[in-house]
């Protein structure tokens, strides 16, 4: 009964009316709205993937027409990149946790935060409309002059959708940076910030600096396509390579937008389940910034065979090699955090360890693509597809799921079923590797990406990949089911079910509307887990 009373004042049950959600400025509610939105987008993008993996079971293009196939992979790319991966961790976990972690009552600009959700949904609606009205077939990269002149599909509408959603990213990034600078609780110095906050700070810098360039690039495409203005089409006096430069100036840093927040999540989870301080706090923090900065200087590695000058390619290759170093530093530090820890393997930890493994492989195969001569052979093949799925799915999605499980008790006040969590983490890890590992081999064998039919030699590996995809699909449906189940039937969570450090665990689950009953004062470093000298029987939490 007391429990019920305590429950009666939190951000979820504060007001049940529908409009109290639609007009909320509470960062926690906005995070929940984002979570529902991106989950919908994820399953739309996933459905497209199911269809084209089915098509690729056989070498002949017998399930769908070429036009349909091309629209499917475009849909998959556009939805997954701009409407799932880029917003995923920042807008859901970041939105929810950033103010909590620094001891603030909300983000600096709560109305702006709500506005960015509406902009995001407007962009999503326009994109979905463009799909319903027939879809676009340019691939998510919108390469000119195909997209600007030759494609006969709804390119303008889709580009406008992505363009609009970009402003949502910009506003979110701006909000995070200002919040981190100005809203920290007393005693929360920069080097006491959780690494999750550092990672989001680096991500926000990319949001703010790279997204406008994408916006202007898409704006130019729409101008060219709509009004016949020749900016990228050589027939109209333009230069198609310029588009690639502008596009990748945004889109390569965008990869780091996807994976940096995931690194932040992992940096929270590992110390908690290893009951250990994070190893090399400052190295992890600064490597996030290093990745964000160097990430802006490597875009040309997408263009080694595009006809850009040989020496430019060499410079970009060099910079790309450099960006591998801070990523390696992170991996080593996380591994070292396990040393002399007291490790337990709950679901979030399983996802995090899975993240390290998959990200390591994804990062190392990035070296193949940065090494000029090998890239000439494998670029635009399935090798690239496999590589970026290891980073984006193996990295970003594993991190997102890990974080979702870790903070689920905080967000909803309920405990998810642990056994099912571990099972689905295992299924996803296995299904993922079965899906994407064969694609490395396919790529080196020379199978180009974005084809709906292929030569017979490639079939065995494609069937393996499609089989893996179906396992992966089950892996994703399971959490959807048991997490929804837990909302009603899950055990109630106390404020700190994992015995974790961090301000977000010092307030009830779910948190009250203004996060803390009184502003917390920070007196210790992050991850100050008590040393566990004597082995003792730890109660099951």
């Amino acid at each position, binding site marked *: 009964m007391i429990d019920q009373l305590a429950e009666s004042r939190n951000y979820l049950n504060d007001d049940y009316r529908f409009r109290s959600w639609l007009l909320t400025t509470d960062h926690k509610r906005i995070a929940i709205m984002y979570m529902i939105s991106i989950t919908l987008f994820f399953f739309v993008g996933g459905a497209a993937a199911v269809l084209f993996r089915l098509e690729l079971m056989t070498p002949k293009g017998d399930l769908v027409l070429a036009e349909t196939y091309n629209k499917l992979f475009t849909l998959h790319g556009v939805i997954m990149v701009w409407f799932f991966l880029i917003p995923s961790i920042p807008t859901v976990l970041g939105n929810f946790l950033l103010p909590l972690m620094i001891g603030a009552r909300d983000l600096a600009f709560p109305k702006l935060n709500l506005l960015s959700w509406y902009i995001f949904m407007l962009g999503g609606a326009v994109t979905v409309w463009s799909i319903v009205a027939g879809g676009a077939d340019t691939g998510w990269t919108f390469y000119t002059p195909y997209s600007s002149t030759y494609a006969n599909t709804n390119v303008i509408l889709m580009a406008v959708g992505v363009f609009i959603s970009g402003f949502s990213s910009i506003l979110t990034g701006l909000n995070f940076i200002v919040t981190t600078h100005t809203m920290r609780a007393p005693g929360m110095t920069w080097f006491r910030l959780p690494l999750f906050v550092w990672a989001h700070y680096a991500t926000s810098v990319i949001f703010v600096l790279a997204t406008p360039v994408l916006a202007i690039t898409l704006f130019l495409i729409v101008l060219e396509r709509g009004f016949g203005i020749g900016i990228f089409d*050589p027939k109209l006096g333009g230069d198609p390579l310029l588009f690639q430069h502008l596009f990748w100036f945004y889109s390569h840093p965008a990869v780091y937008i996807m994976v940096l927040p995931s690194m932040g999540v992992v940096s929270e989870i590992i110390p908690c389940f290893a009951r250990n301080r994070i190893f090399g706090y400052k190295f992890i923090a600064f490597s996030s910034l290093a990745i964000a900065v160097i990430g802006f200087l490597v875009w040309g590695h997408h263009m080694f065979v595009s006809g850009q000058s040989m020496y430019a390619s060499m410079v970009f*290759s060099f910079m790309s090699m450099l960006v591998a170093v801070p990523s390696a530093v992170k991996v080593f530090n996380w591994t070292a955090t396990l*040393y002399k820890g007291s490790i337990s393997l709950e679901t979030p930890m399983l996802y995090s*360890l899975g993240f*390290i493994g998959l990200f390591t492989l994804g990062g190392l195969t990035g070296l193949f693509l940065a090494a000029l*001569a*090998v890239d*000439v052979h494998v670029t*635009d093949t399935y090798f690239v597809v496999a590589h970026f799925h290891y980073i984006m799915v193996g990295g970003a999605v594993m991190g997102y799921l890990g974080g979702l499980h870790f903070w689920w008790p905080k967000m909803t006040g309920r405990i998810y079923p642990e056994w099912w969590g571990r099972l689905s983490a295992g299924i996803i890890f296995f299904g993922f590797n079965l899906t994407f590992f064969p694609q490395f081999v396919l790529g080196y064998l020379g199978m180009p990406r974005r084809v709906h039919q292929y030569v017979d030699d490639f079939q065995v590996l494609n069937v393996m990949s499609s089989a893996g995809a179906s396992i992966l699909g089950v892996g994703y449906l399971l959490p959807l089911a048991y997490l929804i189940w837990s909302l009603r039937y899950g055990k109630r969570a106390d404020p700190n079910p994992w015995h974790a450090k961090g301000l977000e665990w010092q307030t009830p689950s779910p948190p009250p509307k203004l996060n803390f009953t009184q502003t917390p004062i920070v007196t210790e470093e992050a991850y100050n887990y008590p040393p566990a000298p004597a082995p003792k029987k730890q109660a099951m939490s």
Partner: protein
Amino acid sequence: MNHGFQLLPEQASSIASRVDALYFFLLGIAGFFTLLIFFAIVFLVVYYRRSAIRDRTISYNGRSWILETTWIAIPLAITMAIFAWGADLYFDLRTMPPGAIDIQVVGKQWMWKIQHPQGRSEIDQLHVPLGQPVRLHMVSEDVIHSFYIPAFRVKMDVLPDRYSSLWFEATKPGTYNLFCAEYCGTGHADMSGSVVVMQPAEYAAWLAGGESQPPVMAGEELFTRFRCNTCHFQGGQPRCPSLANLFGQPVRLSDGRTVTADEVYLRESVLNPAAKVVAGFQPVMPTYQGQLSEEQIFQLIQYIKSLSIMPAATNETAPVVSPGQSTSVDAVPAQGAPANSSKSND
């Protein structure tokens, strides 16, 4: 060439084994570090599991920077080595060898149109001789394509309105896959074909078969049909610069710059004559944009090339082309045309 299940594509060019060597080095690096991290995690997770009785007192005494420096320095050294190796090989891939056979490739939604210097042309197939460097000279009629032969480990984007090139030397007879690697629209997956590597003698026989007109001759016909000859090559005509001995030479422009008369320059001068006007001339030439296909432009350029004495090295010091210096059109081709496209056979 059906080998069923395989892990590596055929090595059929001089560069393939060198690319594979770097690939194996990278595989070694990637395998080593993946396994290192994997076993480290498994070991630590098992050894320091919560229920295990272990000594967990940590004392780094501020020496963790040694570790940090080590694992910054080692990856840095390795990546720099990979960079150097990759760049060295890339340099060779992008540097055209002398004396290569020049084959013209036009990419078009959704086919490859290929013409050999002796005139034989083919679609979605490329016949090349064994053991001779071949240079593909490529342009697209429409969108960006990418010419990709996995067995040769070579790939190059084919751009509209801009020439790109690619070279290889086949080392193993056989038939290999040819793909378009850059997404180019509905028929992207159909834009594939095969590369046939033949013994030089077979290749010569193959070239002789089939009806064909050497590009140089086709170019000459175009030169007449589009009445280029009414202005150019009329010895001393003051309206146009001479085209004889032009290819590969520096040209001084009316705005004071000097450019080399290469394929790119010639192409631009046909399509957009006002862009670079030779010093001393008025921009009176009309544009031929929209009237010539890419193949025809190739042929015209081949013809103009044939008006120069090859190799260009013999007259490297030739003066900049000026209005007074023009050679009679009939005099030049006899000595300038490549041997294999002799004009006497018609």
